[in-house]
């Protein structure tokens, strides 16, 4: 490296180009504001902390789909399977530890949940390497249905349709116990989401992340330039499964419960819907989507308890038909138009 800098001076254009590239991974004001507001919700909405941690968990699940679908282009309807696996793995660990010892430690639980989900994700990733979008949709859905059935049938392990009772995580870091108001749950979920988000952000801005977008764009050419396409897809699918598993583990720990509802089909479908709402391929799409989805569910559910899904569906159809790329796609389009108009003047 030092030899290179001594013997070779990059051209001014290259220096400028490098600044442009690196600028893309710099934190923007909107981004910082997003996280500051998210943290401030602890004080702004003290009565809604349980809902907010649920949103953070759903956002993490949607983020996991964004990594797999939004960046690598793997269409999936089965992310709920990994969420469920993570929830049951962490739940069983916490139950086993009965509120004490390392098994009940929430952070260890996260790794157990995420690790199990990643393992199953890795093993099933080979099924989604080949085939069209439709094949992938069916394969991921099929895997999710199998997991769902196993959870329902293996009563001795999972409690079957009654759910997994007695999930007792010990205090976070041995200090903060999970309380009734959801204060610990909120700070804990938010912190985990933030840490995993920062890692996901680094991944998608790295050469590895760029290669995923290239595979999504044109697998034929990525092979022609010598890229190990299958290896990259296995890697991101496994990472995505880990993320979904951690989200599931968070859900089991914060609600102290795991139920077959966690692995049900609608879990995968809802999370995908949130991502499409917010806009895939921006990292923030899933987070925004989960906020909107859960808020709509809450608000509309109060107004029309029976028909809230009608309005949800109508919004989805409207968004997909008239705004390509979800809310963030819309914003990006407006920004592009503004800069073009600005440039014309």
């Amino acid at each position, binding site marked *: 490296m030092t030899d290179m800098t001594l013997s070779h001076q990059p051209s001014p254009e290259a220096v400028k180009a490098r600044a*442009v590239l690196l600028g893309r991974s710099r934190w923007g004001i909107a981004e910082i504001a997003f996280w500051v507001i998210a943290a401030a919700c602890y004080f702004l909405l003290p009565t809604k902390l349980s809902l907010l941690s649920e949103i953070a968990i759903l956002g993490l699940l949607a983020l996991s789909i964004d990594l797999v679908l939004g960046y690598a282009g793997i269409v999936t309807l089965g992310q709920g399977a990994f969420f469920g696996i993570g929830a049951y793995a962490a739940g069983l660990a916490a139950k086993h530890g009965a509120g004490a010892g390392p098994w009940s430690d929430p952070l260890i639980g996260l790794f157990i949940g995420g690790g199990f989900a990643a393992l199953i994700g890795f093993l099933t990733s080979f099924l989604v390497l080949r085939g069209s979008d439709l094949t992938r949709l069916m394969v991921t859905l099929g895997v999710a249905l199998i997991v769902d059935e196993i959870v329902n049938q293996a009563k001795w392990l999972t409690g079957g349709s009654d759910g997994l009772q007695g999930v007792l995580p010990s205090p976070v870091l041995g200090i903060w116990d999970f309380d009734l108001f959801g204060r610990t749950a909120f700070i804990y979920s938010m912190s985990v989401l933030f840490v995993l988000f920062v890692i996901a952000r680094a991944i998608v801005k790295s050469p590895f992340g760029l290669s995923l977008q290239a595979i999504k764009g044109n697998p034929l050419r990525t092979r022609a330039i010598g890229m190990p396409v299958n290896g990259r897809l296995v890697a991101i699918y496994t990472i995505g499964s880990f993320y979904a598993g951690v989200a599931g583990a968070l859900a089991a720990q914060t609600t102290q419960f795991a139920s077959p509802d966690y692995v049900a089909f609608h879990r995968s479908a809802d999370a995908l819907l949130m991502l499409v709402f917010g806009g895939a391929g921006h990292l923030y799409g899933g987070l925004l989507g989960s906020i909107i989805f859960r808020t709509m569910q809450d608000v509309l559910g109060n107004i029309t308890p029976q028909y809230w899904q009608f309005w949800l569906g109508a919004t989805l159809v409207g968004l997909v038909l008239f705004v390509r790329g979800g809310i963030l796609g819309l914003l990006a389009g407006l920004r592009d138009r503004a800069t073009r108009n600005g440039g014309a003047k």
Partner: protein
Amino acid sequence: MSPKILLESRQLVKRFGGILATDHVDFQLPQGARHALIGPNGAGKTTFVNLLSGVLTPTSGEIFLDGVNVTGWSARRRAHAGMARTFQINQLFADLTPLETLMLTIAERENAGWSWFRPVGSRSDFVDEAMSLLRQLGIEDIAHGRVGVLAYGKQRLLEIAVALAQKPKVLLLDEPAAGVPEHEREQILDVVAALPGDVALILIEHDMHLVFRFAKSISVLVNGGLFVEGTPEEIANDPRVRKVYLGEEEVNV
């Protein structure tokens, strides 16, 4: 001493159902070759290139790259072993920028494609190389635009830049100038002329003007089989070639 053979096919056959798209082709490409592959439409030129580059698997026969039998190798492995190609129809990444496209290609070549923690652009030597390639092809000014919205001719140039970024030993150019405006064709020729002398080049092209300016040797492919091989003069003066191919359009060399 004759130069070593970088790329070779032996009795290469490809069948699509009842159609014999590649018919027992024996072909040798020495180091430093400037070889043109011509033939009427449907002669199997692109099929041949797809077999060589690993996009298609041959029905029978063998392919050697720099003396190694690569017949069973994937396109990816062949790329790492020094084979690069461009595509007749642009195969680019519409959502990336030209600079990102080249950064990606260079990273792959240097086995840095798995790097996941440092942002793209942290390797300044990669950026420098990518920018100088873009400059060489005259598309430096569009380094940061979205590839998908670039003019067709610019995309064609990027197509070549990607292959060059692989630093290949063997480069297959599948109709690089097709659809490129006249003034940018010159640019393509200049770039090809400026390639290192030891790179072996195959050019598939319909533009005879370009072929005869570029090639030092020519193969004519007809109905999937090698019809005749020779120097440009031999090919241009071969009455059989004139009949099956050049006869369609009067060519002045």
